């Protein structure tokens, strides 16, 4: 017998996480065997060591990490599992890299239903499979009731940058063009529509998706892409301000060129929010030289994840590094960092 049998298989129908699933004993080994190994199966993970070992060619590599703590765990268009894969794959991809491997760290709250965990893990596995990345190592901790929130997932990604690519947030130059690959705010609105005190109906689904395929198409067309970033927390506004700071430039965007779904506009009106500050999980901001903008836009539009891509503005000189916006109405305003968090408001 080469393998310890777990006499009672995990009860995914009625079972819950308890502290034994994190205490290094047989219950933990069983959880790993019957859930994680089964869902994520790949030779590196099967090494069953405390680390995954793999061979890489010489070159430029990247590493990115994100902890995922979303409420609710399941939302239209995804769940914390798929999000945990996409979020990190995208951070890797925003360097132009091809994501290869993910490490996954779970923090589970005592009492969390095993069935929900299975659903999440399988969704992660499917997202990883679709993105072509392998989850090669992991960790599971269990915290007491009231010291967690169901499940938190950290993913750390590892990828390889193709030769000749140098994408960084400090490469925006005055005159550069700013592009996005599609509609803004879908993820945040999909999440908010499910929140207890806000619940509203909308056809909006999270845009959560892995973007490295699109990025590959983009760098193929424009290898001299200057900046890439996914506007997640804090929305487009945060990302543009970050890039403006990092590159020590100003920016100016056109409100009328921002792709926005009707339902996102509607939800923002209802809640008193600004879609520029609402999170995305399948969007990217790209900055390139003016002459590369049209070819880049075309390349993006040819990719399924860039059909609604748009040039939304340009980089300009500005010692204050302000981001400004020409409003559709005709005036000009600033697009500042988000202050605090964006709370639904009545005034």
């Amino acid at each position, binding site marked *: 017998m080469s393998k310890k049998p777990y006499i009672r298989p995990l009860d995914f129908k009625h079972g819950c996480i308890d502290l034994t699933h994190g205490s290094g004993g047989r219950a933990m080994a069983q959880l790993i065997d019957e859930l994680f190994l089964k869902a994520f199966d790949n030779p590196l993970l099967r090494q069953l060591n405390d680390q995954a070992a793999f061979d890489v060619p010489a070159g430029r590599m990247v590493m990115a990490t994100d902890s995922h703590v979303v409420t609710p765990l399941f939302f239209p268009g995804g769940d914390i599992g798929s999000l945990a894969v996409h979020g990190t794959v995208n951070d890797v991809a925003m360097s132009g890299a091809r994501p290869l491997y993910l490490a996954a760290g779970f923090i589970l709250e005592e009492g969390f239903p095993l069935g929900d965990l299975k659903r999440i893990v399988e969704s992660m596995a499917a997202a990883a499979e679709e993105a072509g990345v392998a989850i090669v190592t992991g960790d599971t901790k269990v915290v007491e009731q009231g010291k967690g929130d169901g499940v938190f997932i950290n993913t750390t990604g590892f990828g390889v940058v193709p030769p000749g690519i140098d994408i960084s947030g400090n490469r925006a130059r005055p005159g550069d063009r700013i592009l996005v690959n599609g509609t803004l705010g879908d993820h945040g609105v999909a999440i908010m529509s499910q929140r207890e005190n806000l619940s*509203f*109906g909308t056809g*909006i689904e999270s845009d959560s998706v892995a973007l490295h395929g699109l990025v590959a198409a983009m760098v193929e067309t424009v290898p001299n892409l200057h900046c890439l970033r996914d506007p997640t927390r804090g929305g487009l506004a945060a990302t543009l301000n970050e890039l403006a700071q990092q590159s020590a430039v100003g920016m100016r965007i056109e409100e009328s060129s921002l792709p926005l779904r009707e339902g996102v*506009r509607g*939800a923002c009106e209802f809640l008193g929010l600004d879609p520029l500050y609402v999170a995305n999980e399948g969007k990217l901001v790209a900055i390139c030289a003016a002459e590369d903008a049209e070819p880049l836009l075309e390349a993006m539009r040819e990719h399924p994840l860039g059909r609604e891509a748009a040039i939304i503005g340009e980089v300009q000189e500005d010692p204050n590094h302000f981001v400004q916006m020409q409003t559709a109405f005709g005036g000009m305003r600033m697009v500042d960092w988000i202050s605090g968090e964006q709370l639904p408001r009545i*005034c």
Partner: protein
Amino acid sequence: MCLAVPAKIERFLDDDQALVSMGGVEKVISLALVEGVELGDYVIVHVGYAINRIDPEEAEKTLALFAQLGADPEAS
């Protein structure tokens, strides 16, 4: 002050409530503060309550005023 949005009555619900829609969003609101609202009417919604009906004719008149400004530069 007093963020409020125009929304269309889509369906009447129990407890003096209605389902309204606005820009692709649907939400349940209270009709406790309005009278004689009908299906298809637009109401102004504030903190989950309809606070008034929108008069479509008056709205038309206001819009006509803007349009007229453009058509007739001497209007003002």
